[in-house]
């Protein structure tokens, strides 16, 4: 001890530290910040995925300890199953519509409350923007299932507020019209509710991103005579492009799930299966039909679909980087 003190006269406290520099050494650092999360990831993400993959090649009923391997039979059955193919089609429709609509409305709202204010004075949002921000974000704090239940009431053919309003202004063709019960409108009505529920969240994300853009850019553009539209397209959009892309991926993954809304509106898949989703098929196959092996195969297909979507979105960026 005395030697150490003599050797380091200027820093007597250091000897008390655990490591050579008074903090974690490299090994413990790795163990805590990489090892633990990695272990959790392996146990709670990778392992279940592997398990599901294995189950997808079996006839496991879910309730017994045993199962037999059936090779690719589950997958073959899936691609011969009309319902499952329709479910894939429906999820692709949601994937095409939901992210675009949600993000567009979210962006519109974000621009409105940040830079679309009066064209005199500093660049700011419209009057009362704080209020609009709260109102628009409100749906994001309501649980999806509650929104599902509320909208199911809104769409009710005979007592719903939507048909009440439409017939109120003289549109008699909407009396007793079943928005969720007609093949032509069920999916659109479902997506509309999902857009309502999600766009506020993206608005908040985009507001934060827009705040990160250098305000001098806005001032300069204003001086050069740019209008709100020009500012939005030429400064806001390029400025938050990365956020939009990330949000798009996130919204896309949510669109491929969609379970809560689909189940809340039409648990049996909707008129002519027009709102049947993959996740609903998984749920009913596993828990109602007791065919976990087949359900796992569906899950694997959905996962691959999700990977394909994310890969597709990220590809152009890699090219640009090169």
């Amino acid at each position, binding site marked *: 001890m005395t030697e150490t003190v003599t050797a380091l006269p200027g820093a007597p406290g250091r000897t008390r530290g655990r490591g050579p520099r008074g903090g974690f050494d490299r090994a413990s650092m790795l163990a805590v910040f990489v090892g633990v999360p990695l272990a959790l990831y392996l146990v709670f993400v990778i392992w279940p995925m592997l398990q599901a993959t294995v189950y997808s090649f079996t006839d496991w009923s879910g309730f017994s*300890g*045993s199962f037999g391997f059936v090779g690719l039979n589950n997958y073959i059955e899936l691609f011969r199953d009309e319902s499952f193919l329709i479910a894939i089609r429906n999820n692709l429709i949601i994937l095409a519509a939901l992210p675009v609509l949600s993000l567009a409305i979210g962006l519109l709202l974000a621009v409105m409350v940040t830079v679309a204010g009066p064209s005199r004075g500093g660049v700011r949002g419209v009057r009362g923007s704080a209020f609009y921000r709260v109102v628009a974000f409100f749906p994001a704090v309501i649980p999806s299932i509650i929104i599902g239940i509320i909208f199911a009431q809104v769409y*009710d053919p*005979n007592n719903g507020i939507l048909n009440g309003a439409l017939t109120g202004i003289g549109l008699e063709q909407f009396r007793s019209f079943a928005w969720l*019960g007609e093949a032509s409108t069920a999916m659109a009505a479902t997506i509309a509710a999902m857009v309502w529920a999600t766009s506020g969240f993206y608005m908040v994300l985009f507001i934060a991103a827009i705040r990160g853009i250098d305000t001098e850019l806005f001032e300069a553009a204003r001086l050069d005579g740019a209008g709100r539209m020009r500012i939005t397209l030429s400064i806001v959009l390029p400025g938050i492009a990365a956020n939009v892309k990330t949000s798009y991926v996130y919204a896309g993954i949510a669109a491929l799930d969609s379970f809560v809304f689909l189940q809340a509106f039409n648990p049996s898949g909707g008129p002519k299966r027009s709102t049947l989703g993959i996740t609903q098929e998984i749920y009913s196959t596993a828990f109602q039909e007791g065919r976990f092996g087949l359900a796992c195969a569906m899950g694997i297909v959905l996962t691959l679909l999700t990977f394909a979507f994310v890969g597709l979105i990220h590809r152009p960026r890699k090219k640009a980087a090169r």
Partner: protein
Amino acid sequence: MYTPRFTTSRRVLTAAAGATVLALSLGACAATPGGPAERPSQGSDTTGDAKNPFGVAAGSTVDAVIFDNANNVAFFDTVTPTMQELHEVDLKVTPSTQIAQQVQPRFVAGTPPDLLHSAGSGSIPVASMLGDIEDLTSVTNAMNLNGEPIADTLYPGVLDLAKYDGKLAAVNYSLNVHAMWYSKSMFDKYGWEAPKTWDEAMELGAAAKKEGKYLFTWGKEGSAYYLSLAIDSAVKEGGRDVLASLANLEADSWSQPEVQQSFAALKEIVDAGYFIPGGAGTQFKAAQAQWSLKQEALMYPTGSWIEGEMGDEIADGFEMVGAPAPTITTESALPYEAMRFAGGNRFVVPSDAANAAGAKETLRVMLSPDAAAEFSRINKSLTIVKDTVPADGFGSTSLVSARDLLDTAGENAFAWDFTDAYPFGDDKTRIWNDFLSGSIDVDTLTSEMQKLSDKIREDDSIVKIKVGK
């Protein structure tokens, strides 16, 4: 996790070498009677002691998982003291609303509950568990607490719905009578009568229209109640062969003339606009309230649980009673009074249960008249135990009506539940929504239903129950 599982598989394969019933699925073998005795202590042998036929150990605990609703919890509160009194057995009840999700991991881990009440929307199909649950024949062969053989006290035929190759896989504790329910006071007021044929139903529909009402209503989750009505009507018209063909999933079974006539009759009612429009987009309970509370629809075809289900949402002075399904002609094979009934509230005892004897003893207590009467009082529902509902039906007109309908039907009562026992599931609901909203015709309805039957029939992984004629 994998190792024990593969061990089981190997054991199963050994059993397969000797047993012939293994066409089912690998999982189905573990408890096959006659296979290698894995658990001699839990065989279906009874002790011969009428007071303790299954040899439940005093001081033991029965772990029961039941479907959670207020009525079930209240009912089990009356069973628990009896178990304590009889055998000092502690009946521990865990209510759950998601039976399948909650219990499934316990089955896999080999530590399932002793007694499982598989009911509600999260119930587990009996066929999925078939290899992992006990044969309950010993329970119905035992004496009840009053010293009568339980089998003699039950409505005949109802347990057949849970019999797989002679194995009683479940006890369907409650008994549901499927009828067209209506308000007796309203019918009296307008001088209406329940229709005995579809022609009379059309006339009643026209009469209802005059009063600004509709004959029927439906909700998007409950469209298949009309499938049940159509099947009942066809079975009454053509006899039990019609039912056997449908329940055995035969090719072209939905094209049988009686089924077609029944579908056509409903199509006529749909086309005449005698259904409240918009049902395919209406939540089922809201739709049912259109009938029970607002009284905009005259009749609703469903099970006898409906009064309990609607609770406060029934108009004052409604006087709910049921009527049999209409026949197609007045010369039907079964009389107009013939009724469909089915069991609800399935109870199973897992083979791996630590206290299977205790679970069977619990069922024996439940199947005794006192407990059955309590269940009827609390739930306003029949149980499979006969003669336990007093004349006043505990103040429930629908309970009295259900009992009387069944008594009147007598030998002509028929039981089926193949559309629930097989995975017709959400598909039938969707198809019937489309049919009742008028967007598909009888031919499409028939081919879609046939497609479902064919798919289930050709799927060897689905265990079949053969229905005799």
